[in-house]
């Protein structure tokens, strides 16, 4: 009976140092540190907040190294605890925790029971290298919650749009990536996961398109990127897995960059409505460059890092359905980021009232430097991918032929924005159900059920006695009839 302590000791002694794990860990750590620095320069936070953030990032960076289930579970929970501490320090802690923690704990419970099944089957506490053999469904749902896959994404959308901007930067870096790493580490590769990833990437992009506020817009793009990653790391093909892992590192960089940009531009433009922001291009050169770099990366334009992983994924996935889905998602991504750049930065027209004079909201040099560093990082990860992840089969994002083919779909997306955006948006608004319609239906059904159950406990002791008599009869019947 090897206990928790023994398992933890084992984790420390024999870390899991497969190259993909090391890359993910380093990506989380590097970006986590940058994000912490960004927040430190951006606003003042309480000590407790810092404790939570450091635990969150640290545990996230530690997780890939764990070699057994007990360690994996404990560190997985530490990530949640860190996030919970961070959320406690937010202004609307009550509502945030209510939205965040139940989902996370549901994931934890599922993961725990899945691990128990695996342990029961294999008799060993070690994590099998080729994915678990038992309890796949439970573990799958657990990592899907953590990765904010589409029907289980509500916690993320509802949390990330309610926290303060800096906090969103920290949270966007770790939580969902942990879930994706869970898919990589725990689930065996299959075509189902590839297609699932493709579907999620596409649907999330469609939802992102109809958002008119900045942070929900970014949140849905996180989900879309997670779809790409799932398609990659969930594939049975080795190259696709590597591409998926690299794609896991890329959005950490460019997604964090975009969150930082948004965190800085909302106070400057005084609005979080995409259509009302404007004129950023004439206000801050660095921010504009950063936003463009982020948008190019996420749209998969060479030579930025998004291009490397996306093109690798396209070429290595087993299922053609998934490939097509990812193509559609790529066009949608380009379209929506064209929209973002156009309204926020490039659109000509009169500037709205200046908000940047308000105290404490001026963009500080330090934060600008960090966005610049991240933009550079996005570029470098595209130019010299092997220096970051030695297992990659490609050496650079700039080769003549690939450059042109890489540009095709992003340009198509950008063109769509200028030609057909209005009709597309109208179709989307009509056809897509509101992302929380299903959930609210489920919720009301659940509430009804609970009310019914509560009404059955009417307080009449005679009814309770009747239940007890009935239960006894049930036991007796069983005894008489059972062999």
């Amino acid at each position, binding site marked *: 009976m090897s206990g928790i302590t023994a398992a933890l000791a084992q984790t420390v002694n024999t870390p899991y140092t497969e190259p993909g794990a090391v890359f993910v860990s380093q990506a989380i750590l590097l970006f986590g540190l940058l994000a912490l620095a960004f927040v430190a320069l951006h606003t003042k936070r309480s000590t407790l907040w810092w404790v939570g953030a450091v635990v969150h990032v640290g545990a996230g960076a530690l997780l890939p190294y764990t070699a057994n289930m007990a360690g994996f579970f404990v560190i997985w929970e530490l990530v949640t605890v860190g996030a919970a501490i961070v959320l406690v320090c937010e202004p609307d802690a009550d509502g945030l925790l209510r939205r965040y923690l139940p989902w996370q704990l549901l994931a934890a419970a599922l993961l725990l029971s899945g691990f128990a099944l695996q342990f029961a089957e294999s008799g060993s506490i070690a994590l099998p290298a080729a994915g678990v053999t038992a309890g796949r469904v439970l573990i799958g749902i657990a990592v899907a919650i953590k990765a904010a896959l589409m029907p289980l994404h509500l916690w993320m959308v509802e949390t990330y749009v309610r926290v303060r901007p800096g906090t969103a930067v920290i949270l966007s870096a770790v939580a969902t990536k942990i879930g994706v790493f869970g898919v990589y580490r725990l689930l065996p590769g299959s075509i189902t996961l590839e297609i699932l990833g493709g579907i999620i990437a596409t649907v999330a992009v469609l939802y992102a398109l109809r958002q008119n506020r900045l942070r929900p817009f970014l949140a849905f793009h996180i989900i879309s990127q997670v779809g790409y990653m799932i398609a990659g790391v969930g594939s049975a093909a080795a190259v696709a897995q590597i591409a998926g892992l690299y794609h896991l590192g890329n959005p950490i960089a460019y997604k964090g960059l975009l969150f930082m940009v948004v965190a800085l531009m909302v106070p400057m433009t005084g609005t979080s409505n995409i259509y009302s922001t404007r004129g950023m291009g004439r206000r801050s050169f660095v921010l504009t460059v950063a936003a463009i770099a982020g948008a190019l990366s996420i749209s998969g334009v060479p030579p930025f890092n998004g291009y490397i992983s996306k093109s690798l994924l396209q070429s290595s996935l087993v299922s053609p359905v998934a490939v097509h889905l990812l193509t559609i998602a790529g066009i949608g991504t380009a379209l929506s980021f064209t929209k973002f750049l156009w309204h926020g930065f490039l659109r000509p027209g009169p500037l709205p009232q200046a908000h940047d004079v308000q105290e404490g909201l001026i963009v500080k040099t330090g934060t600008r430097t960090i966005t610049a560093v991240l933009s550079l990082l996005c570029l470098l990860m595209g130019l010299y991918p092997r220096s970051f992840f030695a297992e990659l089969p490609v050496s650079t994002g700039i080769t003549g032929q690939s450059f042109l083919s890489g540009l095709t779909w992003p340009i198509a997306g950008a063109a769509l924005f200028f030609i057909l955006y209005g009709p597309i948006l109208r179709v989307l608004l009509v056809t897509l159900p509101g992302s929380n319609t299903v959930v609210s239906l489920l919720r009301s059904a659940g509430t009804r059920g609970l009310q019914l159950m509560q*009404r059955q406990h009417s307080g*009449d002791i005679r009814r309770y006695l*009747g239940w007890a008599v009935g239960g006894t009869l049930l036991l007796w019947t069983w005894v008489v009839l059972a062999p």
Partner: protein
Amino acid sequence: MIVLTIGITCIALTGIGIYGLLRRTHMIRMVLCFNILEAAALLGLVLIAYSPDARSPILRAATDAHVLPLPHALALTAIVIGASLTALMLTLIVRVHRSHGTVLVDKLKDWRG
């Protein structure tokens, strides 16, 4: 024959007691139903002890056949416990009557849900 009679009585009393418990609203009637059930259980105990042609377990000649003494001892203990429970229930009914102003059990619905 006597075994059968007592057995049927025992079953009938149990049925009556449980039906009463489930249907009567008056608390004191519920207590009475408990007493009926208790009586049925005691009858059962006595029935277990009974055997034909056996005498009561008061020893006069060692060779006599006696009924089982143990169930009788158990029944005695059960009677005392049952009486105590009855007393406790009656006390509680008195207090419930004072606080709720009713002796009907379906009016006791402060706690529910």
